């Protein structure tokens, strides 16, 4: 899985927002706000490929959380990003 080309994270008015900035994303009409941990993961994965396991590892590096919870959160996040259309 990876973040689709053209989607970038911006911090505006104190909020982390994903915006579709490529010409391929001109019809993307959703406002995607990320919380702190999701924004951290979005930045960390950049343009690279990732799996729920990769994200869980990143969460364990930054937050005090057990592996099972981190993996569950990471799986949910991957599913959400795919459903919203910012990851493929």
């Amino acid at each position: 899985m990876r973040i689709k080309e053209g989607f970038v994270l911006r911090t505006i008015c104190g909020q982390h927002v994903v915006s579709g900035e490529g010409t391929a994303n001109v019809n993307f009409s959703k406002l995607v706000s990320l919380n702190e941990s999701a924004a951290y993961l979005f930045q960390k994965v950049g343009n690279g490929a990732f799996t729920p396991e990769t994200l869980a590892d990143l969460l364990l590096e930054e937050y005090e959380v057990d592996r099972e919870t981190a993996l569950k959160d990471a799986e949910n996040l991957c599913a959400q990003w795919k459903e919203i259309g910012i990851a493929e």
Partner: protein
Amino acid sequence: MEGNRDRRVSQGTDRQFFALLRSGLWNEVPERAPFAVGTDWEALYRLAFEQTVVPLVTDGINRLPGEFLPAEPERLDPFLGDLMMTAQRNRLLDGFIPGLFSALQGIPVVLIKGQALAQDYPDPERRQPGDIDLLLLPSSYEAAKDVLLPKATKVLEEEREIWHQGMRFRSIEVEVHGSIGTLMSRKLDRKLAALLEQQFDGRPFPQVTVGGVGIPVPDADFNAVYVFVHFLHHYWSGGVGLRQFVDWMTFVSVHKRDIHPVILEKRLADLGLLRIWKVFTGFAQEYLGCPAEKLPLAAEPDAGKDARIWRYIRRCGNFGKNVDRTRKKEPFLVRKVHSFWRLVVADRLRHFPVFPQESIRFFLGAFGYGLQRLANGE
């Protein structure tokens, strides 16, 4: 009592709105004092939306210290959503324009208004876009239609008397204009038609980069007058949003060095618009924070006139959207009497204290045009 409180809230929102708009326009940290009393974010969004300047205001919010932002971040979602959508829409329109001009190769045509003026904004993606406007001479009008209409996904109703043809290319609306008439006064429109002829006298046009390609636009001397007249036409005839005012102010402040002051003054005086121009330069300074030295032919602000101008713009909203126009089901004559009253009499009475001579002049001009349209059954 309730009314007083409403007015105080409204004035507070107005002050916050202008503090944020000025911040967005001039890349400055917004004034903090208006936010000390708390912010009605919904009212602020509504005002920015009505005036079609949400992205500029959002830029201002982005510069506010955290303590002035709402405790519930989702209250800013409408601002952020509009900011994102505006940027995307601008990219869509800008990407479409080079192909449009390529199709019209060989026909003298320039890009006007929206996407051309957006390039002068602090960030071109912050201007809320509408359609794509093309300007040419009446003699090129049919040729442009012949090229574009077969490619359009929808052809809109033509307004032949003002050389205006709209069309859609999926979600993108394009308007071809063969005239810059205002329907405010025949004399004014005749002089504007002569200016348009001069503009297309065979000299090469300046270009702005849109969608990565150089696109022809009118020269700065013409555009300073045209953008002003376009704004004025809407101001005078039913409503204008601050976006159009910002378009004019931004254009003349960015291009001040390209605008010849003697030519501008002569043209405005000839069109009978010099006094109005000067009053609006005062409003630009007083409400939008534009330094006088950035404005050609700037005059001192007049607090009373400026307040009246803002009250009128606030009441009308962009293109008069705040004014009731749902009278389509009424009989023809009732509608005509109502629109005559509102557009020709009531609005001009409101303009009278600020522009007394011009109100009389344009009242007579609109009256003449109105009678002709009535006679034509339009």
